[in-house]
């Protein structure tokens, strides 16, 4: 029993670490983008200021489901982050860091947020949720096909297992280059980076699901967004870039993946939501399936 309690404490530590890491790197990336646009850019800790300011502000509430959804969303995401390994030895629940947990526990958080947003009674929020779900349907399927290839090749769905496999046999980014590309596109979709930020679209649907939030609910949703980003980017690092054997390596890989995604994002416009679906179901899915057939059925 005490083992589990210890694991849970470590897990909470991982979630906190993930939040801090992603908030810092998010801030640095705002600076990077600023420099790219010949601006000075904000301070590296700007994101922390934003979040704490929002948390301290007195907000409005649209009823119990509005609050409950936020709690469920952030709680679900925190729980997901608790399973995430950071390096191949630093993992809260060793042996239980199953890939599917991340996909489906992440969905609890998304469901909570969607519920809360729809509960606010704003039609723009519902439109945002509709777009977010449709986009999820688009990017998730090619990503999953790539991942089952990885799971089948490495023979395990545990993230640490996949890491160890790569450290012995080379990165999947190199041995499955097509899948790497497809998964990177899916990563952009997951993170809501720019060709696929249709569900936020501030100038079109007034930031979609977030339209009614302010104050602590908005702050908590920012926390959720940071932790979700941490989960998604770490998943990508662990699945394709060989994970990490120490924390410096993890930080370096994490920073590179997130920054590249962010830079690509800043060069793009925005797709319409049906274009997103068509985009993902055309080439990425076909390539992912072809690669899976080539690798597995050979």
């Amino acid at each position: 029993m005490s083992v589990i309690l210890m694991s849970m404490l470590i897990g909470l530590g991982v979630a906190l670490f993930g939040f801090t890491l992603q908030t810092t790197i998010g801030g640095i990336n705002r600076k990077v983008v600023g420099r790219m646009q010949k601006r000075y850019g904000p301070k590296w800790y700007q994101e922390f200021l934003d979040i704490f300011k929002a948390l301290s502000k007195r907000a409005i509430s649209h009823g119990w489901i509005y609050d409950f959804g936020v709690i469920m969303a952030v709680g679900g995401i925190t729980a997901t982050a608790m399973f995430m390994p950071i390096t191949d030895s630093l993992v809260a629940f060793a042996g239980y860091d199953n890939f599917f947990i991340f996909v489906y526990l992440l969905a609890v958080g998304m469901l909570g947020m969607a519920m809360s947003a729809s509960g606010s009674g704003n039609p723009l929020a519902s439109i945002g949720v509709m777009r977010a779900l449709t986009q999820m349907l688009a990017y998730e399927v090619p990503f999953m096909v790539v991942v089952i290839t990885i799971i089948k090749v490495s023979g395990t769905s545990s993230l640490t297992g996949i890491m160890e496999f790569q450290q012995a046999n080379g990165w999947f980014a190199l041995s499955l280059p097509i899948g790497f590309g497809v998964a990177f596109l899916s990563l952009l979709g997951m993170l809501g980076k720019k060709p696929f930020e249709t569900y936020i679209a501030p100038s079109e649907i007034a930031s979609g699901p977030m339209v009614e939030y302010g104050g602590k609910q908005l702050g908590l949703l920012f926390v959720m967004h940071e932790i979700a980003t941490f989960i998604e980017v770490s998943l990508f690092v662990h699945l394709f870039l060989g994970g990490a054997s120490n924390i410096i390596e993890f930080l370096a890989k994490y920073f590179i993946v997130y920054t590249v995604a962010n830079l690509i994002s800043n060069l793009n416009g925005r797709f319409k939501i049906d274009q997103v679906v068509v985009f993902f179901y055309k080439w990425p899915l076909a390539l992912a399936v072809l690669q899976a057939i080539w690798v597995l059925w050979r």
Partner: protein
Amino acid sequence: MFSIELVVLSTLLAGVLAYIVSIKLPKLGSYLTILASLAVFSVLAYFGFNNNLDAEVNLIPQFVLFKTSMFGLYFAIIVSFIFFMVSFFNPYFIKDYKYPAAYNLFYLMALAGTIGVFFASNFITLFIFFEIVVWTSMFLIPLGKKRKPTVTYFVFSTVGSFAMLYAVMFTFSITGSFDLAAISVLSGKSALLVYILLAVAGFAKLGAYPFYVWLPKVLGKSPDPVSAVFSGGIEKLGAFIAFMAILRISPASIYLEAVGMYLQNYVIAIFGAITIVVGTLQAIRQDDAKKLLAYSSASNGGYILVAIAMSSSISLTGAMYHILAHALASTAAFLAIAVVHYRTKTTKISELGGMIHHMPLTYMVYLMAIISMAGIPPMGGFISKWLIFQAVINKQMIIVAVATFFGSIGSFLYVFRPLAALFLGQKLPKYKGVKEAPFLMMIPLIILTLGSFYIGVIPNQVIDFSNKVIAEFGFGPLLMNEFGIQGANGTLSAPIIASVFGLGVVVIAIIFFILPKSRKVGLMDTYTSGEFIYTEELLHYSADFYAPFERLYPAKPLISKVYAMIKEKVNELGRFFKYWFFTNKPEVTVLWIVLILTLLVWGDIL
């Protein structure tokens, strides 16, 4: 010891009793259905778990033979539980029916029929009880005041029944036995034929592609309790038949190296995959909440088929688990919608809104049900989907995997639709004063939700049971340790996931409540870009929810064109016979008279 025949007979008797009582007092009769189904469920569960069910007693003539098996027991307990749960709704809906007495009779007869099917030991018994279910459930459907779905259901059931009858007779002609075990003896072409026929029967009952068309029509239009019973209970008969066909018969055919299974199993899996995709796509565009759930039932039937077709310990456990998880979740969802229907008299999503403010408990029940249906932890559906995914990956069936993932993510889309537009959103003024579900309706809703939650957190008992079931088919048990289920490429620990999720929510809730308290505002005080809007309907986004996505695929499934063509041909044939044989047109009559006279007069020469 308790005899199965006694259970079946007394259920039928209780049906007759309920019928007699309901002629004068329909409501009392419907309470009898609750008691009777409770008795059936508790007897089956109690004596079944203690291995005390007796199949030897012969009260009915010899050709009706029963046997006990874990396989039958698993199904019988689930289905009788679903019948018991749904029966709580009968008293509230009974007054809407044209023939309340008949409803109570058929409800219990359908229950007796399903139990008879699950415990049948020979094909004659199986067929008789199968037909009892078909006929009784057929008469339950038009009580929702729509006749057409009944015809659809009858047509598709007939296809299944005839396929089964033919399979039974064919087996008899070869092996000379009606025993269920006889089908395992078959070999070669005849085995393949029986396999296909029984699969067709299972498909038709389960509502798999290409027979899924009846599900939305029937479940969408029949009375609410009947829809729930169909989705959670009667539909599972199809899974039962499919299990039997796929696992008991092994016709020799091509072995596919790449996926490690026989061709016919792979074809079944592909059909299951098509069912998943078509069901999901159609569910996404439904406006009627019941039809939406009906398509979701079809899609989940596809998962069960895929899992059965893969025939490994993991996949079969997944199938068994999915049958249970889906029965609980789907029934809960249907019943939650039934509460809404009962209170507001409509199930159209675009007409409803803000029901959460009137019925928060029903909302929570629906929420938990959809969490399970979408396969999200910590509910039962997650474990079954995880098991099925494990098996799909293990068998490296890529095409099927695409379909299962599509269905799994797509289910978020369609289950969220009633949540967002029907329960959440603006509080529409036309439903002012709508109340929460009555107490008696609450009972099954809460029990089903807790059950769904329990099997999602502690899967051990169910997996123990299903290990015994799959052992009857000759598969090894699924390994479990204290915390987790051992899959093909990883372990899953449901209790840890649930407790971590609980911990996450508690931590965040504490933070949430420490932070400054929010100011309550109404739903209409919402961001409108500075526009003044006072009409709730204008701020409620519910019609054409997924319009941008729906634009990408045709509105009607392609198979419905085929059915329309068949219908046209049958109509033509009918018109032909009607014109020539059942007509009052003088020229045809004269022609017949002339022909007959000709035959009479010159018949001997001709």
